[in-house]
């Protein structure tokens, strides 16, 4: 069985994003970019399924600017077998919306015929949390979103999901879409030999036009602003003072 993994190049999660002065967006010039953390978990899960003998080949896909090649090379260094970059013009960059990404991935799934597609549950830039669900809908496949455990057996996939009230387990018919939550696994670091080896793994480049998907945005960003800032308040010197303050707020009265 083949597994398709989708990865996105985003601002590194350790970097504090800064809003541009003109309110047009977040400043990404000269900012460290990395693979979306949830997507690293997706790549790791695919590799583990291959190590268990469930998967035979892992294809990593990214939709983004030319530099998203670096993100795909990271996936290859971790253990993906080959990669596909659907390259968008630089000015569109990471701005391709989840619906268009889902459509592109659906087309690629049509060509590649994977048994499982794994994606991060959301990207840490636009925080949409949509692509996996949309992709599953477009393909008419089941979805195991926010997965904290994935078990393959025969023609089925058992997925434990992190839901608000606890953990929900569902059984999905294959082929299926899985989106990863934080506790699914701990992604490995690529070793230096594997990073070197990844350079010679196949990486194909296509354009959205070749794939036949219109990436025109449906949502228009009118303005991006800093959130209202909270001010630091006071420090109290003792538990007694804190108790008094809490009583003042109507707590435990």
């Amino acid at each position: 069985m083949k597994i398709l993994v989708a990865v996105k190049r985003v601002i590194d999660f350790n970097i504090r994003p800064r809003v541009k002065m003109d309110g047009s967006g977040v400043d990404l010039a000269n900012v460290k970019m990395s693979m979306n953390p949830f997507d690293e978990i997706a790549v790791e899960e695919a590799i583990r399924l291959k190590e268990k003998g469930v998967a035979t080949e892992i294809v990593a896909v990214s939709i983004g600017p030319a530099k998203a090649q670096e993100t795909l090379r990271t996936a290859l260094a971790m253990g993906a077998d080959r990669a596909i970059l659907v390259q968008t013009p630089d000015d569109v960059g990471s701005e391709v919306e989840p619906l268009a990404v889902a459509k592109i991935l659906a087309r690629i799934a049509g060509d590649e015929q994977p048994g499982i597609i794994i994606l991060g549950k959301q990207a840490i830039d636009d925080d949409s949390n949509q692509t996996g669900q949309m992709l599953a809908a477009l393909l008419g496949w089941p979805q195991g979103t926010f997965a904290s455990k994935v078990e393959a057996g025969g023609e089925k996939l058992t997925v434990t999901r992190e839901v608000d009230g606890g953990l929900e387990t569902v059984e999905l018919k294959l082929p299926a879409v899985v989106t990863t939550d934080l506790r699914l696994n701990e992604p490995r670091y690529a070793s230096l030999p594997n990073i070197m080896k990844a350079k010679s793994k196949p990486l194909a480049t296509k354009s959205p036009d070749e794939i036949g998907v219109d990436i025109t945005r449906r949502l228009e960003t009118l303005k991006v602003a800093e959130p209202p800032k909270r001010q630091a308040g006071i420090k109290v010197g003792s538990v007694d003072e804190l108790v008094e303050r809490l009583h003042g707020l109507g707590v435990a009265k």
Partner: protein
Amino acid sequence: MSVLVLVEHDGKSIKDSTLATVTAAAKLGEVHALIAGSNVGSIAEQAAKIAGVAKVHVADAPHLDHQLAEEVAPVAARLMEGYDAFVAPASTFGKNIAPRVAALLDVMQLSDILSVEGPDTFTRPIYAGNAIATVKSNDAKKVITVRTTVFDKAAADGGSASVEQVDAGQPAGLSRFVSLDASESERPELTSAKVVISGGRAFGSAEQFHGLLDPLADKLGAAVGASRAAVDAGYAPNDYQVGQTGKIVAPDVYIAIGISGAIQHLAGIKDAKTIVAINKDEDAPVFQVADIGLVGDLFKIVPELTQKL
């Protein structure tokens, strides 16, 4: 504009998230509700009483039990022929289903909205809440999920909506519910509690986390949360996690104990009315946003606080 709200329920009662979603939806137009489930007659009665809901659609069939996205989304998408907007709470329930509905309608979803600025314009957080985008949708129909903590809850009583059965369709049969491992708690829910106390990695073990925080929570009638670090260390279950990738909370009082204040944690608490921080490191970032801070050893402070309150 006519708006369809997807009701979040557990088969017994309607979740508070639905009430806040109704408030947000009412800013767009007349609100109708959709309930999907199996044997949900009593849920429909409750929904009909929500102030501001004009009509309740009920899709009641065995295959809609457990409200699997594969089964619910086609029902909602069919019903959307008669509506301009689909609105769901941005809970794990709504996040699971809404994008599936959006794709079936060929609409780009607006996730986690914070405000309604106009019929097609909304604000929503991006970059873990480090920026707020004002976004205009050019789709004919809107599909929206709502950050429920920023909208007031609609009154659960006072409405008298008509109830109508709708076509529940055929089972998709793609997925099957196996089990729900629900975290049982006598305490209020994190997302609706008036007081929340959260612990971080500084507690050192699950025993100390619960041993110190549970008595304090009982005294305060508070919900208990945790930082991602504490959850990752295994001190608390995953559904305790407060933050951008966990639960977004907006209590009257939030008490962060032994939590340094990572960006992603602070993003989940910034709508709290008052933030109280207890930490031994006086330079911890949490103090930059806390209204009341106390520097000191939590192993001494927490028992003393529990005793004196």
